[in-house]
């Protein structure tokens, strides 16, 4: 008799994701199904609008990913209309994108993923003097005295005593799969709290370049902030100095806290170097353009497809290839005019809802039929993993020196083989590795920007093709963006100055996709097969692997319960929306 367990929704991610997993008698997962249980609909809202304003709508598709959708959107318009942006604008964009990675990955590690590995309650049993010794051994971070850790411990004790565990409350404390000694737990909990203060410094770049925070401004053709060292309202010497200071603080935290913590925690969980791989196929659209935002040969992160772990034969995917870049809805709650078996390129994409699932509340999805609001994007009919592991592999395979050094450092420190990178552990380490690479690039881009300014190259906006009268009657474009959680693409079709079609294929749609027309599973589904669970009622092992992908369901699908709210929410009596 097999048992199917359900996790709905997966905790600590944005929006609704449901995983159903079938277990055998040894509590090992034999089959898994990933379902987005809310509908997406941004494409319908964008049709008929001014392409130059699309970013302002697209950025609202997800509360956490506003920057990445804005960039993908303006790049899609620039690609469609052949707009080149000035060199200084490109450097400013690269600074904003690199900052986003560092901020997002650090917060993901400490605030979303760490709680799968770190037992908060256990830290109360720690000897602060031992934690202090560990801290001083692993890095030069100054907050390292026994008294400091004892203070944190008292604080956590008072939180536990008050019954207000807040976001700590929703976990599996005491689960046998938690392996860290209390002292390492205390170390990680301390940095969980420190990261909340650190993000204040880390977000200053966006506040300055975007002109306001939250929800900074973006513009097709460049960046909205002018450069004028003598102006109060432009990028001036004072603001540059704030940015430089913010970059230093980001680099220091990554070097002295994030990377050492990863290497201190990982040795207790080395079995995850053999768990959670999934597909072995990886896709990146690439990121950090050189001078010309459309010249992919100058990207820091290459545009790449890797198949079957084969790092020696990287392909360069063309996102405009109608035959290869396709989305399927065979197992998704949509209709295509051409039927359920065909795939459509995003420029031809259709968004017609067709919910055929069970009426909520329900126990199990009908996984042999349609079972998700996520479509199934495929490259050449093959499911792909996107995200940090894909990017690090692409940089590693293309010979990026620092990436190679960092990968080798992690492998040698943990004494694991290169094959262990294809795993939950590898994905988690890749996130830290690229954070270090991009944090250091912040300094490079900053220095380059200062050089450009000194040379008088202060133009940040190209308005040549701003007026719709300069546009062709019809144009189509692709906007790439390597979002922190993976390859994001916006495909736009412009006709007579308006948006005729707009489709987003977001990272979580790649990773969280349901099965396709060939019955091939998506990355989450494949990654869970073979995982053995200590206690199916506390599915910590599933969370560890799913969280290693950094799912973001709010943009993979949309913020609405398509079929009414579930009984649990009504029962709480008071519920402020925003999940």
């Amino acid at each position, binding site marked *: 008799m097999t048992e199917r367990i359900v996790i709905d929704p997966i905790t600590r991610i944005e929006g609704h994701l449901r995983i159903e997993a079938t277990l055998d008698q040894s509590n090992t997962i034999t089959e898994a199904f990933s379902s987005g249980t809310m509908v997406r609909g941004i494409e319908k809202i964008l049709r008929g609008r001014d392409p130059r304003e699309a970013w302002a709508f697209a950025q609202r598709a997800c509360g956490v990913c*506003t920057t990445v959708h804005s960039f993908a959107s303006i790049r899609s318009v620039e690609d469609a209309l052949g707009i080149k942006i000035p060199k200084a604008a490109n450097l400013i964009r690269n600074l904003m994108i690199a900052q986003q990675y560092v901020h997002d990955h650090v917060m993901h590690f400490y605030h979303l993923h760490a709680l799968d590995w770190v037992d908060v309650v256990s830290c109360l049993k720690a000897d602060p003097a031992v934690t202090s010794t560990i801290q001083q051994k692993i890095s030069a971070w100054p907050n390292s005295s026994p008294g400091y850790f004892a203070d944190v411990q008292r604080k956590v004790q008072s939180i536990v005593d008050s019954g207000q565990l807040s976001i700590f409350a929703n976990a599996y404390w005491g689960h046998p799969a938690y392996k860290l000694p209390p002292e390492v737990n205390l170390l990680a909990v301390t940095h969980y709290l420190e990261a909340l203060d650190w993000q204040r410094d880390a977000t200053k770049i966006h506040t300055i370049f975007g002109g306001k925070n939250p929800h900074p401004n973006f513009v097709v053709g460049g960046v909205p902030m002018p450069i004028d060292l003598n102006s109060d309202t432009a990028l001036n010497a004072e603001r540059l100095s704030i940015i430089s200071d913010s970059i230093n603080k980001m680099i220091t935290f990554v070097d002295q806290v994030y990377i050492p913590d990863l290497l201190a925690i990982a040795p207790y969980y080395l079995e995850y170097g053999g768990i959670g791989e999934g597909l072995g196929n990886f896709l990146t659209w690439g990121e950090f353009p050189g001078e010309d935002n459309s010249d992919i040969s100058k990207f820091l992160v290459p545009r790449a497809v890797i198949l079957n772990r084969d790092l020696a034969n990287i392909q360069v995917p063309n996102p405009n290839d109608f035959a290869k870049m396709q989305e399927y809805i065979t197992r998704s709650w949509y209709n295509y005019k051409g039927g359920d078996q065909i795939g459509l390129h995003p420029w031809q994409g259709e968004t017609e809802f067709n919910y055929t699932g069970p009426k909520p509340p329900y126990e199990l999805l009908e996984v042999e039929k349609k079972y998700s609001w996520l479509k199934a994007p495929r490259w050449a009919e093959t499911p792909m993993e996107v995200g940090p592991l894909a990017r690090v592999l692409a940089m590693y395979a293309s010979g990026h020196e620092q990436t190679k050094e960092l990968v080798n450092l992690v492998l040698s420190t943990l004494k694991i083989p290169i094959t262990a990178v294809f795993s939950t552990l590898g994905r988690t380490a890749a996130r830290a590795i690229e954070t270090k690479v991009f944090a250091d690039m912040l300094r490079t881009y900053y220095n380059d920007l200062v050089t450009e300014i000194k040379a008088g190259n202060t133009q940040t906006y190209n308005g040549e093709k701003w007026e719709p009268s300069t546009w062709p009657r019809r144009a189509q474009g692709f906007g790439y963006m390597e979002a922190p959680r993976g390859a994001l693409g916006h495909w736009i079709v412009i006709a007579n100055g308006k948006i005729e079609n707009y489709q987003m294929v977001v990272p979580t749609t790649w990773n969280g996709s349901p099965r396709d027309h060939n019955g091939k599973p998506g990355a989450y589904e494949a990654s869970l097969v073979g995982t053995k669970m200590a206690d199916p009622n506390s599915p910590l092992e599933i969370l560890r692997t799913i969280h290693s992908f950094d799912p973001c369901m709010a943009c993979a699908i949309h913020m609405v319960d398509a079929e009414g709210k579930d009984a649990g929410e009504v029962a709480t009596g008071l519920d402020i929306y*925003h999940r």
Partner: protein
Amino acid sequence: MSHDLLPVRKVVLGLGNTLNRDEGLGVQALKMLDAQLGKKREFELLDGGVLGLNLLMIVEECRHLLILDAVNAGKPAGTVIELTKEQIPLYAGVKLSQHQITFQEVLGLANIRGYLPEHLHLIGIQPKDISVGIEISATVERALPEVVKRSISILNHWEN
């Protein structure tokens, strides 16, 4: 694990996703309030969208915070709901938290870190329609002026 900034900001924070009709009513109410207040004022109006944890920094810098939001209180759609600091559930238990880091959890975090704003209010409306779209329902639209009126009343107290 703490910051040394004095909580001095006075902020009106409109929350919600504007792509889901009434879900974004807090942001719509903020715009209406902005239009009525004119330029001269001592407080900031901020569109918080659904930024979650990123809003913690703003919350912790506030001495005065007024939140405008869609609220499900089990009342008829269009009902205006006003909550004082003590009535706002800072953290509503396991069922709610199973989604993501909600704004209530942001408030909960600010609380355990000792930075919950001294003056905290929430004014909201029971939504009618949170399907995909950018226009809010007529029922909620009719209730917006009441939200603006009550907001101005709170802001008048702030200025003293």
